[in-house]
């Protein structure tokens, strides 16, 4: 899409993604950023209700699936989108503590906070005299 002619830094820890049949799934746009404590993923999933969202973390693979119900009444005159199902998969780095994961879906945006395991957090080491 937008990275034509741009050199993007390949980030090996998170770059491996599963790709599904492109014309049956919508690939949601995501932001992924890291702080000292967490790895946070934010995904745009307009049209997805809480009960139709499925987040699965298994053997280091994070799968996000979201179904969309409904749509406008009447006869279509002009369409720019058809929302069926969102799908995207990520290979997560090993330093994730899977038990401490929190997800929040608000206004069509999913915020997934993944805690880093203790080993992955930076530690300041005091120097004793």
């Amino acid at each position: 899409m937008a990275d034509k002619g741009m050199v993007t830094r390949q980030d090996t820890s998170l770059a491996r993604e599963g790709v599904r049949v492109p014309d049956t799934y919508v690939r949601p746009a995501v932001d992924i950023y890291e702080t000292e404590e967490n790895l946070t993923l934010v995904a745009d999933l307009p049209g997805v209700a809480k009960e139709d969202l499925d987040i699965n973390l298994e053997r280091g693979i994070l799968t996000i699936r979201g179904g969309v119900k409904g749509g406008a009444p009447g006869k279509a005159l002009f369409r720019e989108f058809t929302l069926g199902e969102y799908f995207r998969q990520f290979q997560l780095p090993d330093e994730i503590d899977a038990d401490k994961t929190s997800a929040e879906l608000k206004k069509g945006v999913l915020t997934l906070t993944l805690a880093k395991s203790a080993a992955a957090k930076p530690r300041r080491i005091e120097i004793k005299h």
Partner: protein
Amino acid sequence: MARWDLFREMDMLRREVDEAFRSFGMGQLLGPAFIPGIGTGDYPRINLSEDNDAFYVEALVPGLEPQDIELSVMQGTLTLSGERKEGATNQRTWHRRERGTGKFLRTIELPAAVDSEKVGAEYRNGVLAITLPKAEAMKPKKISVRAN
């Protein structure tokens, strides 16, 4: 009635041609659902449909507060504008950054006159659904024929 607008017409045609070449599914969402930014004019993504009573516009605007969306109807043109604000970006290492932030503005010329007093909008799960009732004069009238 709507003015004849050469540029709009060309734009529609260009879009249709683009769609025909790019996608096989009708109106399949290609690329991200929402990238705000003045000047693109392509966001938010919309669908327009109608029945006898009204036009319906659906727009994808995830992550906005409903009060941050400006809606106005003037002379048969619907204008959608607003801004998706950026959260705090302190001390972060970005791995991916695909969701845009910023202002957006989009105008949609409606095919027929609407009753702007009765326009309603609802925001649910990041999708804005706007109902624009047609002006009385635009609604189809059934005329019964009496047999002598």
